[in-house]
């Protein structure tokens, strides 16, 4: 009898524990305001474990973003979380890139821009950071200067190792759009000199779009390229331009 009683009590308690937990709403978003300690606190408290703490907060930030972006869209603590992660681990690139869209969703694009700048200062050899800075400058910058500002960042990104070949072309296009035709022409010249057949065709098309149609003015506009390009490449470019204009 006593044994049966024990079994019944155990089963009832087990059903209560499992049943209660299983019927809770697991997907409910948590509180959007989460306490995030100052990075200085962790720097002083656990210098050996600072990257581990940064990683833990990185995982937390990703979960926090996923939890709230599709729900209440409140990302109050995300800026503090990403600031903590990047301060404790300044060479961890992903949080900077993540901030490009996540902090825009949080309504703080300026902070995303500042964070990316900080990231680029700490990691000046990573092309992705100036590339994202160019993207941010173009998307959120003042209308009059955004093309020029973005072009400057893309130019920097294009010179860094590992950057895809389209980045300098993007920079040249934006320079032209921002009114810097001479700089754009120089950049197209460099792209032409370093590119393959496909890239050269793109460079010729880019130059065609910005060079004047009148012959004298065209020659004058091409003069800076003559000074900056290898002779062989310059001659080939002129040939391509002539062939393009006669077609």
């Amino acid at each position: 009898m006593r044994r049966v009683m024990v079994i019944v009590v155990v089963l009832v308690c087990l059903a209560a524990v499992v049943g209660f937990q299983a019927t809770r709403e697991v997907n409910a978003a948590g509180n959007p305001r989460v306490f995030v300690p100052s990075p200085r606190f962790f720097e002083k408290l656990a210098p050996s474990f600072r990257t581990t703490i940064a990683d833990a907060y990185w995982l937390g930030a990703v979960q926090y973003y996923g939890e709230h972006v599709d729900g209440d869209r409140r990302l109050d603590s995300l800026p503090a979380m990403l600031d903590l992660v990047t301060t404790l681990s300044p060479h961890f690139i992903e949080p900077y890139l993540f901030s490009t869209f996540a902090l825009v969703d949080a309504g703080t694009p300026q902070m995303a821009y500042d964070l990316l700048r900080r990231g680029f200062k700490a990691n000046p050899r990573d092309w992705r950071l100036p590339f994202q800075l160019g993207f941010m400058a173009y998307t959120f910058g003042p209308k009059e200067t955004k093309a020029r500002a973005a072009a400057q960042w893309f130019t920097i990104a294009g010179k860094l190792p590992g950057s895809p070949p389209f980045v300098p072309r993007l920079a040249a296009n934006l320079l032209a759009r921002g009114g810097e035709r001479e700089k754009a022409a120089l950049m197209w010249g460099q792209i032409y000199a370093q590119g393959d057949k496909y890239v050269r065709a793109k460079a010729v098309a880019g130059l065609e779009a910005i060079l004047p149609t009148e012959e004298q003015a065209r020659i004058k506009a091409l003069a800076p390229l003559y000074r900056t390009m290898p002779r062989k490449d310059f001659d080939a470019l002129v040939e391509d331009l002539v062939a393009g204009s006669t077609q």
Partner: protein
Amino acid sequence: MTRLYAVALNTFKETIRDRILGVIVVFALLMIVASLWLGSISLGQEARMMKDFGLVAVSLFGLIVAVFVGASLLHKEIEKRTVFVILSKPVGRAQFIFAKFLGLAVTLACVLAGMGLFLFLADWIVARSPAPLLLAATAAIYLQLLVIVAVTMALSTVTSTILACVLGITVFAAGQLSRSALSLTELGQSAAVKGLAWLVYVAIPNLNAVDIKPAVVGESSPDWALIAAWAGYLGAYTVLALVVASWLFSRKEF
């Protein structure tokens, strides 16, 4: 030398018989589960997460072995009364302490080597490139834990097993904060506070100095000459702790 070797070997066998190596199996399982889990929630950063959390796990599992085995080593001998048999032979008390330490140091080396190698291989599979710094970081953790073993053994000669465990863990935590004590010496207003903070800074082992965990994830580049110098410091600290342990043990009455 033979007597030292015999006691050390016996300690090693004894700890291995306690299924200490099971820690490696638990660690391996934890790493496998963690790599699968982290892969899905870290936005493609599983290799970095594995390195970072893996080294913390090596540190914590190693600390558990170092502290719990280190604290019970002498008490077990006393409780089982085997200490009387050993000390009745031509084995000095200091020799006994050093041999016990050596035996546990070898066990700890096996445990850490197992965990370090598993972490290295698991990371190699996930990251698709080897990270030899992981092995160096494991060796640095080993040095830190040797200090903790020596300190815990010294503490266990004068306190109970539980208290020695707690104090051993406290010394490990304090060793990570050593530089904060140094900051206190700069902040202190009175000379007495500054002096006390400096004393604490000198007395606590600076475990943080040989730590290369941040370097493993690319946060810094290790200065090997400096690390070697600090490794020497930790070695000297370990010897000092063992000398204190031997002295305390020699005054102990059974």
